[in-house]
């Protein structure tokens, strides 16, 4: 038996590679997918996103996955968001609004209950939950619910990182020099990659728009100009 055959055996896992897990939901950012086991947001598991401050791009990070799920006809449930998600912006990012369920329960207890119900429903692809304090026991309960229907739960919390958690993936999101920096704090299979820098909000919006409206000038050589 050659060395390659041994290394390709499914029971052999090398520390340098990501664990082999069920394929995830692609995040839409190739740089990030490359470092995530399963190539995206883990399904049947909890993802925790710690944002350094609200508005550093933590929500934008999840929008492409939400767009992909809703276009496949699955539901995305948004529970207790800090503000109302702005429908035109979501639609512009490709989210099918008729597959979006917005739930605003009154209490923390109801938030967890609603999350569990949504996770257990086979129609949901992902549940996005905003809740600061979740007891570890409640988290384990949610983990079981997510496993039962292969749904993914994305939990948004603020920067105070809890010491331990049953989440399969934990990310820390911050901003530096106009870019979003994603640090993987925990992932299945271990091994922590260096921080990933993403350009979420693009270059300033006016430039982006200006580029889109004006005809492309890059290819115009003097010869082209003379012919035109």
């Amino acid at each position, binding site marked *: 038996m050659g060395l390659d055959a041994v290394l390709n055996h499914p029971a052999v896992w090398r520390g340098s590679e990501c664990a082999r897990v069920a394929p995830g939901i692609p995040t839409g950012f190739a740089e990030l997918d490359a470092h995530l086991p399963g190539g995206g947001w883990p399904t049947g598991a909890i993802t925790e996103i710690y944002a350094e*401050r*609200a*508005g*550093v*791009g*933590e*929500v*934008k990070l999840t*929008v492409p996955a939400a767009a992909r799920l809703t276009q496949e*006809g*699955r*539901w995305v449930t948004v529970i207790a*968001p*800090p*503000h*109302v*998600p*702005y*429908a*035109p*912006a*979501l*639609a*512009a*990012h490709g989210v099918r*609004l*008729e*597959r*979006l*369920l*917005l*739930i*605003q*329960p*009154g209490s923390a207890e*109801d938030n967890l*209950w*609603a999350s569990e*119900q*949504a996770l257990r*429903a*086979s*129609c*949901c692809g992902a549940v996005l939950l905003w809740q600061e304090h979740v007891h570890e026991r409640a988290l384990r309960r949610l983990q079981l619910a997510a496993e039962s229907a292969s749904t993914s739960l994305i939990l948004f919390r603020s920067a105070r990182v809890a010491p331990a958690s049953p989440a399969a993936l934990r990310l820390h999101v911050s*901003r*530096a020099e*106009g870019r979003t920096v994603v640090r993987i704090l925990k992932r299945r299979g271990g091994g922590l990659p260096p921080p990933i820098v993403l350009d979420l*909000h693009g270059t*300033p*919006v*006016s*430039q*982006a*728009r200006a580029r*889109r*409206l004006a005809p492309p000038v890059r290819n115009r050589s003097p010869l082209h100009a003379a012919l035109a």
Partner: protein
Amino acid sequence: MLWLALRVASLPLEVYTRAARTPHALAVVGSTGTRAEIIACNDAARRRGVKPGMAAAAASALASDLQIAPRDTAAEHAALERIAAWAIQFTPAVSLAGPSEVLLEVAGSLALFGGLKPLWNAIAEGLQTLGYAAVISCAPTPLAAQWFARAGLAVRLRHLDALHLSLSELPVDVMDLPMDACRLLQNVGANTVGDALALPRDGLARRLGQRFLDDLDRAEGSLPDPRTFFTPPTVFKASQALPAPAQEAEMLLFAARRMLVELCGYLAATASGAQRLSFSFAHHGREATRITLSLVAATRDPDHLTNVLRERLERTQLPCLTTAIALESELLLPLASRNLSLLPDAGQQEEAAAQLIERLRARLGDEAVLGLKRHADHRPECAWRTCQPGNNTDAAGASRLRQPESREAVASAAAASRPLWLLAQPRALGEVEDAPCYEGPLSLLAGPEPIESGWWDGHDVTRDYFVACNPAEAMLWIYRERGRAGKWFLHGFFG
């Protein structure tokens, strides 16, 4: 022809006891003449020495905690009709017979249910879920099936030849004869149906009447025995008295679930689903509490309906003990039955989504579970609406703003530059030397994008929007009111 007779022997008792998981000692009293006499009692009462036939006063003396309920023949008849309506899911030919029997003609249903035994088991299990203990007998003629059921024999006879032999063994009591006819047969030594068949027919006809002979012939199948079939009512109505007043949600749910199973059998029989149900919990000396379940989609799944009711009951404060529960279907819609499939399909997913939404709404309220849609308006705060989840006709956003393609591209490019979060109310920003501040001075990254609209409805908007960034690098969407004051406001976060 193959007939099943369902005989609910202790119907007078079970119209009460089926509403409680562990009923107390209960006896049902019927009045024969001037004497109030116990006609049925449950096991708990029997253990205390109460027996059918006892005077009510004697029974109360034996067991001080015995509950005595009057016989309610109207409720019994209604219960039997509901059993008949429930049974239509097994065969369209259902007929009511006697005070406690339902007849089902099942020859045509055997192939669908995979034979007599699976069908029999399905009916027996179903009756148990409804809370009735029934004897089920099967025979080629309806009258014979009834007789076997009255004798308490759960036989499965499928051929007339076997029927003749087995009928002879039955006691004559099963024929439901008048007193004097019974006595006469006993006096001549005819104790079984077989004995009666062996007697000379002309003498029997003279002494007992032609009806007696006709019954024997019908049971044997030599005379036709047409039955009138039961038609289910167009609305489902049921009411159930509780044997003991209850307030706990679990106890009420137990009774309500049995009614919901009945309802779902009725719905399956009529190929419909319920979209609106109304429960009414009667209290002693107070107005009844009504709970209306409005569902997103019509359903006939008893588990789902029970779950929705459970959430509602847990949220509802009942003022005092409940004595009876009534259920009425207010809105029934046609609902086709679904083929069983190996893999989940789109229809199942829709159904799962509808059930999820109902469960959430039952506990959190309608206003807490919403969908979002776009709205054709240039003012950012008017460009979206809440709506029913899933019920999104986004046409307004797309068609009314349908414009030449270049302009549409501009519109979608503009929408892409909108923030993911919009504040419900724009927040006024502090200003330092005419520059807006939000946790530090803001630098403008993009803009201005003028938005000027709404002069016709009084919510006039003339604003210049900018994308801004504060020292902590939070991306904000701010605007400046055009005009003399020119104040700055925060309107959204890019998240």
